[in-house]
Structures are given as structure tokens and as C-alpha cells.
């Protein structure tokens, strides 16, 4: 793929990722055993601020 096409695709994909809304019910369905399709979700403890 030529350079300008790569740049365009990267730019376009980044914007799409940011702008595409989420369908809540389907987002929930992707969560199986604390994993979001291969990506481990943070444990609730990780969300507690360190200063506490």
C-alpha cells in the first residue's frame, strides 16, 4: 500500500474509532469472564485512586 494511502487509512480509522458510538447491550455481551474479547478488564481495585 502506498504511503499516502496508509496515512489516510490510519487517520480515517482513528477518527472512526473515536466517533463510533457504543451499543450498550452488545458491549455487555462481549464481556465474558472479565475479558473483553481477549483484553482483560481492569479489576475494581485498579480503579481506586492510589492516594487512598
Amino acid at each position, binding site marked *: 500500500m502506498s*504511503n*499516502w*494511502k496508509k*496515512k*489516510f*487509512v490510519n*487517520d*480515517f*480509522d482513528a*477518527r*472512526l*474509532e473515536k*466517533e*463510533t*458510538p457504543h*451499543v450498550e447491550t*452488545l458491549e455487555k*455481551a*462481549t464481556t*465474558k469472564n472479565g475479558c473483553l*474479547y481477549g483484553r482483560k478488564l481492569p479489576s475494581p481495585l485498579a480503579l481506586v485512586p492510589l492516594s487512598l
Partner: protein
Amino acid sequence: MNVSIRTATNFIRGDDVAAAEVYQAYRKLPYFIIVAYVKTKEDAEDVYQETFTRVLTNRSTIASPSALHSYLCQTARNCAIDCAKNKEENLNPEVEESLGENEPTPLESLLPLNLSVEEKTIAGYRIGFGLSWKEISELISIPMSTAKLHYHEAKKKIKETYSK
């Protein structure tokens, strides 16, 4: 198609894990199809939710697993056209004018380039998603030859912008 035939088959049968997989694989394309028709982000979001609701509700009616891709695309297109028609019928000209002044359309947010709506849409489908000319022609209801002409123009402008 962005998912395997097996996943598509399970999806049509009502499997929720397959539904999640289909959603992950098809998160972005329906949104792009929708923004080619609607003018505000709010409408795009509503139509996007409606698209997935319709697809999930009617998934048992999909003729075959290989038809899933075009079923999803056509549902997004139909929902967006319905929304655009509704807006056109219910909007008075003063409100329409003020809508245009405020913020960029969702399509402009995705592709802030000096291209026409057709050029942006076709460039997104062809370069961004790698759709075939037949698919593009069906999605925007224009002949393949016209789509190729728009693409040629878009490509020149995009190349100029991204070669800098």
C-alpha cells in the same frame, strides 16, 4: 465478510457470543454508512442503535450466513434513509439553516477534507473499508462507472493532502 461462516451461522441461530463477535467485527462500517445520509451526530447515534436492534431482532430471517454482510449494510442504509426522509419532512427551512451553521456533520468529522459528500463516501468505502465497486454502487445507488469517476477525483485530492 468480516466474520467466519461459522460465526455468522451461530449468530443467525441466536447465539449471544456470536452476536458479540459480529458486533466487534462490524462496529465501524454501519456507522460510516449512516453518516453518509444523516446530518447530525445525535441522529447518527440513534440510527446506529436502531440498526443493531433491527439486525438482532430479525437475525433469524437472514437468508444465509454469507448474506450477513450485505444484510447489515443494507439495514444500516435503510435505517439512515428512513431517518433522513423523516427529518426532511418534519424540518422547517429556518431550523435547517441554523443546523448547518453550528457544528460539522458526522461525515465531515470523520473526513475533514475538501471533498464532496460523494467523494468522501466513496473514498471511505473503497480505501477505508476495501468494499467492492458492486457493494459501493449498491450502497449509494449510483452506477459503478459514476462511483469510479468520483473515486478518481477523490483519490487525486487525498493523495495531494497526504503526500505533504
